């Protein structure tokens, strides 16, 4: 290591506020970007799944349990 101790590493030879501010902002933005991308994908998949399920139910080709299927299926037939 270039520094003699970890406290010297943190002190950055008196330039600590500048160095750590620059690295901190960078780390926060990179991490935030990754977290956002993961949440975005998970949310889209959940929405899509819900939509596909709802539409297939409306179309009357649900594969749910028997009582639900008959009641909902009956509902769409009447309408």
């Amino acid at each position, binding site marked *: 290591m270039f520094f003699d101790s970890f406290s010297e590493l943190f002190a950055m030879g008196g330039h600590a506020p*500048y160095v750590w501010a620059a690295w901190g902002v*960078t780390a926060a933005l990179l991490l935030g970007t990754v977290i956002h991308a993961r949440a*975005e994908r998970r949310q889209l998949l959940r929405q899509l799944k819900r939509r596909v399920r709802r539409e297939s139910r409306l179309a009357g080709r649900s594969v749910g349990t028997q009582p639900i299927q008959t009641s909902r299926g009956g509902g769409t037939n009447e309408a």
Partner: protein
Amino acid sequence: MWALINKLRSPKWFYGISARLQPWFWTAALILIAIGTVWGLAFAPADYQQGNSFRIIYVHVPAAFLAQSIFVSMAISAVVFMVWKIKICDMAAAMMAPLGAAMTFIALFSGAVWGMPTWGTWWMWDARLTSMLILLFLYLGVIALRGAFTSRDSASRAASVLAMVGVINIPIIKYSVDWWYTLHQPATFTITGRAAMPLEMWLPLLIMVLGFYSFFIALTLTRTRSEILRREANKRWVRELAEEAP
């Protein structure tokens, strides 16, 4: 080239190939940035004039490189989208803009906190700094344009035109340090020649730059896949995919 362009017409093909590519780029980004961070912060020698504030270079330069490269990628995607009507390029371009804005912000911010101990000022209205600020506004303009239309086609076309016109700013940024008198030093880092810097300072910077580029590719692949789910939600293969998803 033509084979690739024809394949890109199929979002389904892209969705499959990007699934196989993205773990490699995410892994490369993680490893390279981790090594570059430890090396740059703790092991690289301090600059004999600037002391340890010089370590800001390891985030400043990769971010500034990426800020410009992302805009060029966006402009190229815009051309391919406009000329060959390839939707996937428009999706990728839309996903690149926020990362480009973030990188431009990092370059400006790290430059400001580097400028204080080095030049004695946070900000100067000189050519390099101002043209980078314009780049940030161009990114924000592209993002705003995409949100400003109710029709997706109009939004895509408007954002593509701004990306294609705005790319003229990139050579201005690059040559600003040669054309005008500025505080900002000329390029100290090039891939080809490394005379301006000793090897033990240059190597961690190279690793960091490569890490940032891997991050950009990985994130663009991941987010373009999300954008496909968003825009192609009515396609049968996307619905089948949603049913299989856990």
